[in-house]
């Protein structure tokens, strides 16, 4: 790394912008080769799934600042669609993914039109209400297995069923989806849509005065976010071969996305990834250490993280790093 002087006299690190991305990609690609045990692989797959859903949430919750705590509605639709297609028609579960996406986008538009009239906490509460309604409804609806839920194929009829004994193929499929999502997000960041989202977050009234159609932009963001959240749900149910109302539409699913994104840094490209990198191993560790007796511990962990983020660093770890790193760098440089 070469130290240079920035336009305002502060020292800045001059490293090619691609380097962190390359390092990250290499790390994620090589992870299963280094940690090949089923336990570590499982953590890796869980991490990727969490990173995908949180990154999808990030589009509307992070960039546009519309904190939805009901994204489980899209995750659940995505999770149910493949298994429903399998149960009803005997199709390969992946054939249900497009349906999940379509339902989620339709729901996003339907929900977005009334709820985006609300702002701040009221919007968050409305999204919780909708997700909970859907969860309760699915719990009594026989077509989708009511409270018992749905199951996928027990043994693979062919590769297209995506039912593997090892977690390794899932790891790379999930990684590919995450890569696509992050590429798309970084493209959005540099386009009009991305600028408009950030402007809406920073001040709706000012954004409107500059010609931003706030309502329409928010709905587009929610639809895009819903589509990818739905894909995350589908990947989850295809992998586990099982979904019930709680694992699909449960409030914990929504809360996890919010916490991971907020922990890492909402509205940052790699924020959710960083959040998942911290939270998922921590969660696995607490589950392992405390065994079955610690099943409620996840909630305590979430609660603690919410308090810490809200009190000390609303910008998440990413911002913390950005504030602290230059200071460390300068101190080292001065010495």
């Amino acid at each position, binding site marked *: 790394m070469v130290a240079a002087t920035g*336009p*305002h006299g502060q020292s800045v690190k001059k490293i090619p912008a691609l380097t962190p991305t390359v390092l990250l990609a290499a790390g994620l690609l090589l992870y299963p080769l280094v940690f090949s045990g089923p336990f570590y692989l499982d953590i890796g797959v869980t991490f990727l799934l969490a990173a995908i859903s949180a990154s999808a949430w990030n589009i509307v919750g992070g960039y546009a600042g519309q904190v939805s705590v009901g994204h489980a509605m899209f995750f659940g639709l995505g999770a149910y669609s493949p298994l429903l297609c399998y149960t009803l028609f005997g199709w390969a579960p992946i054939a249900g993914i497009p349906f999940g996406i379509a339902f989620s986008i339709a729901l996003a538009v339907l929900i977005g039109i009334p709820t985006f009239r609300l702002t701040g906490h009221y919007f968050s509460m409305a999204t919780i209400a909708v997700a909970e309604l859907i969860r309760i409804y699915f719990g009594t609806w026989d077509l989708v297995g009511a409270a018992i839920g749905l199951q996928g194929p027990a043994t693979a009829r062919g590769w297209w069923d995506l039912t593997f004994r090892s977690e390794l193929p899932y790891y790379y499929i999930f990684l590919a989806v995450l890569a696509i999502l992050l590429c798309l997000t970084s493209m959005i960041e*540099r*386009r*009009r849509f991305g*600028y*408009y989202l*950030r*402007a809406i*977050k*920073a*001040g709706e*009234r*000012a*954004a*409107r*005065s*500059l*010609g*931003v*159609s*706030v309502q329409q932009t928010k709905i587009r963001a929610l639809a895009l976010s819903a589509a990818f959240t739905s894909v995350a749900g589908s990947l989850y149910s295809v992998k586990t071969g099982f979904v019930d109302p709680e694992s699909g539409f449960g409030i914990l699913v929504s809360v996890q996305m919010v916490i991971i994104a907020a922990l890492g840094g909402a*509205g940052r490209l790699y924020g959710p990834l960083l959040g998942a990198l911290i939270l998922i191993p921590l969660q696995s560790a607490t589950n392992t250490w405390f065994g079955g007796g610690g099943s409620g511990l996840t909630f305590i962990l979430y609660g603690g993280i919410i308090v810490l983020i809200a009190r000390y660093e609303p910008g998440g770890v990413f911002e913390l790093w950005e504030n602290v790193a230059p200071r460390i760098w300068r101190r080292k440089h001065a010495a």
Partner: protein
Amino acid sequence: MLLEADAVSKAFGSFFAVREANLSVDEGEIVGLIGPNGAGKSTFFNCLAGDAVPTSGRIIFASQDMTYAPPEAHARLGIGRTFQVPATFEGMTVLDNVMVGAYLRHPHHNDARECARQIIELTGLKAQTDIAAHSLGTPGRKRLEIARVLATTPRLMLLDESLAGLTPTELQEAIGLVRKIHETGVTIVIVEHIMEVIMTLARRVLAFNQGHVIASGKPEDVVKDEAVIEAYLGRGRHSYRSRSA
């Protein structure tokens, strides 16, 4: 006639903040709105910008009825407004702030950035291009506010106390900036408390008091108007006139 407000009233409950205000602005004019605090200038101004819907009356811009149009439609048709309290996009850089405005007419990233850079140079923010907007001081924010609006290439600019809170030197620079913008062919309606600004910039002034337009005409004449003096100072306190000037 570029902008015409015809008998515009705005009531909050039974209280009329603006009562039957008329205003017509020709292309290329600078019109000033003055009046004591609470006179209804800002409410009238918000009606013109689409932020408030008038209770009655009509607002015509470039022969289109804008009375009920939302703010974004105003921006698209060429009415730009600044906010009294700068509504800076805090988390974004100065360049990004201006680019949000520039994207209205330049959908492509590079065009928008090029346009934004030109505007930033024009408004004298070039040294601050890449710094975070939240680190700007008041004069910088006021300039940024103007720059953002200018990036939407408006035909009419509504300035809501954009020059308030500046030091005398900054004020002179800001007046120069407004002149420069006016010379590029932008029509300007300006709300201002500082008489110096109104006297040097505006060729026509409307004075508000308690929701009514109480005087209009050349600035020199309006400041001598008995009703205007009374609105600001009350009766028989002419000795205080120098303070408001």
